């Protein structure tokens, strides 16, 4: 770790809870996890819930409490959306799981984040791997939607449902950071952050830190300035071009978002989804577009080309635009 660590770190990392006791939310889940620590046993787990609700943090805290300060020797975290294919995961898992631990805990922990990004086939392969190494390794799968995890895995895991943070929890957490960093945060500022972050704590802290970098008290307007800059209206703009009938320009913006900014297609779909409500078209047309968007989203999840699919939606938008234009 470099010289700058600790002092110059993203606050979301700097203030990330290290132990289960430090976790401010998901009280019931934390209690259940503490039982695992006490008994030094645990089943395979499935952590389901929206981003920024503490799934990964809970896994780390659990491992920390089980294995102690050097927990990382017995802990491996993989990200399903970054690893190329199930084969890579299987090999990595095999290498990690086959050596025994040197602690009094008889197993290691492997976290597979964003497991719902694996195809059903890959999940089947993963299930077999989980069974083979059950003696030496416990799996914690995390996902946004538990229904995207195949039944056989669901039935073999203890499911923990993480819920979005309440405003009170978020505010309390942000205030603690502000006190430590000597930053002034007003309540309306905190409300603005919460409104944008929608219960996603990582996002809330990132907005807080970006706002603080301006060096003035964090009020609602400051927050909106930050968010406006960070998430420019590119997606809305892309949709507006399509609606005006300039499909080519709109496709060019899509390419910029996908390839230059590196947005995932499904994230763009998500943003388009919320923008549909703001379009000045009939309610019936909105339903039609949402229906189509759902189809597109599903196809992308099935492995179809993001650009081609979203383009088809933009072309549909251009057609709607002509009708209402």
């Amino acid at each position: 770790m470099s010289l700058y660590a600790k002092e110059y770190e993203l606050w979301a990392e700097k203030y990330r809870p290290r132990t289960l006791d430090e976790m401010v939310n998901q009280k019931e889940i934390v209690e259940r996890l503490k039982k695992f620590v006490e008994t030094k046993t645990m089943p395979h787990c499935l952590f389901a819930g929206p981003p920024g609700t503490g799934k990964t943090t809970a896994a780390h805290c659990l491992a920390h409490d089980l294995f102690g300060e050097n927990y990382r020797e017995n802990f491996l975290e993989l990200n399903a959306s970054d690893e190329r294919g199930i084969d890579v995961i299987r090999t990595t898992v095999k290498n990690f799981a086959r050596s025994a631990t040197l602690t009094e805990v008889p197993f290691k922990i492997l976290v597979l984040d964003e497991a719902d990004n694996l195809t059903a086939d890959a999940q089947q392969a993963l299930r077999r791997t989980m069974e083979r190494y059950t003696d030496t390794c416990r799996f914690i799968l995390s996902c946004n939607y538990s229904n995207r995890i195949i039944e056989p895995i669901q039935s073999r895991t203890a499911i923990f449902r993480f819920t979005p943070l309440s405003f009170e929890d978020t505010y309390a957490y942000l205030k603690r950071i502000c006190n430590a960093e000597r930053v002034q945060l007003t309540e309306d500022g905190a409300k603005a952050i919460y409104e944008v972050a929608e219960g996603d704590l990582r996002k809330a802290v990132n907005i807080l830190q970006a706002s603080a970098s301006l060096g003035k008290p964090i009020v609602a307007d400051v927050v909106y300035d930050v968010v406006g800059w960070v998430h420019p209206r590119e997606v809305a703009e892309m949709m507006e071009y399509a609606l005006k009938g300039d499909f080519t320009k709109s496709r060019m913006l899509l390419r910029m978002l996908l390839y230059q900014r590196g947005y995932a297609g499904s994230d763009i779909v998500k943003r388009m989804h919320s923008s549909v409500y703001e379009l000045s078209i009939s309610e019936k047309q909105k339903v039609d577009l949402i229906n189509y968007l759902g189809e597109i989203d599903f196809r992308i999840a099935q492995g179809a080309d993001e650009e081609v699919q979203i383009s088809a939606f933009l072309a549909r938008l251009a057609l709607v635009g002509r009708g209402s234009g």
Partner: protein
Amino acid sequence: MSIPWIIKYRPKRIEEVVGNEESKKKFIEWLESWVKGKPTYKATLLYGPAGVGKTSLVEAAARTYGYDLVELNASDQRGESIIKRIVGVAASQGTLMGSMSRRIILLDEVDGMSEEDKGGVKAIVEVLEKTRQPIVLTANDAWDPKLAPLRSVCLMLEFKRLKQWEVVKKLREICLREGIEVDKEALEFIAKRSEGDLRSAINDLQTVSQGRRRITIDDVKWLPYRNRIEPIFDVLSMIFNAKTVATARRALSLIDVDPDMMFEWIYENTPSQLTDPRDLAIAMENLAKADLFRSRVKLLQRWELLSFVTELMTGGVAVAKEATKSKWTPFHFPERIKFLSSIKSEREVMNSIASKIASRCLTSRRTALSDIIPYILFILRSNPDYGVKLLKSYDLTSSEIEFLLGKAGVASIEAPRKRSRST
């Protein structure tokens, strides 16, 4: 820009027709014999390779001598009865309407008459015997056995490939009219490549001058590769003009190109070819379906299902074209491929940065890209000094930090110091 130059610069007067002076002279003599009322031949057969001015000469001459042009070309049906009806009527009437309505009957590409044009040649010979109007036939290959009956009754005029300097001269005129500055070398390159086919030379010139005011040798050097691209243009034009799914699908079999690459070409050009919003929406949905099926085929390794993909990506686009008005629009190379390769290095840097940040923030590269890096950019912008220190704690290299500073719109604050250190 949308008018093809081969139409825009079609000769209006006989003198503007390039090359083949001898045959041109004989053609004019023949036409004048008609004007005088003592035709030497009922018809002429102009033959020679494509793009050397056969049809252009007929058109220019008709205009000069005040004839109407009645034209039947290869794309029309030319069976026996049709020829007798249309050509026969056109060839015999005329005088009833007085001298004002003189006509030249032009039958283009007679060697292209297929089996379906059964009896076509015989019908032409019959019409020739009776005609009271000049008839012009053109052919690439006059020595086709099925044209034998025509050869004996027609004045045969050969058109040869144009000379390089003739092509260059014409191209230069066009550039002048278009206000395009062009290097001599570049023109010679195009002319040489055309092998005396002025039409293809003009098409090449228009292709390379898309969006340019100045053309150098570098702009035309890639033209030889058009040998590979040109068949793709042909296939595309077949697909976009097909009336049936079967025709559109057949177009693919004419060319040996990777279906994924062909998909890119079709996907790229669909918006400019299908300008009507409804047509476009339907075509894009069919392409999206083709893409979905393609991903399933790959996932399941069921290659025998690939035909559903190819039918949707060709036929699905072709039959969507209903309300779009016919208009010549040039095809262009898939922008997505160009775009991806142009930002390849940028993407690599971004991914490397995202990996470093993702592993420390216990998240995926994807989340780092969409939910963390944008905030870091904001911090860099509002407080560069602090932002840079932050990034250093994530083990980013100085060139990666420079890159992010650029993204954040901050002039480098490290560069001067770094330079003084390194010297």
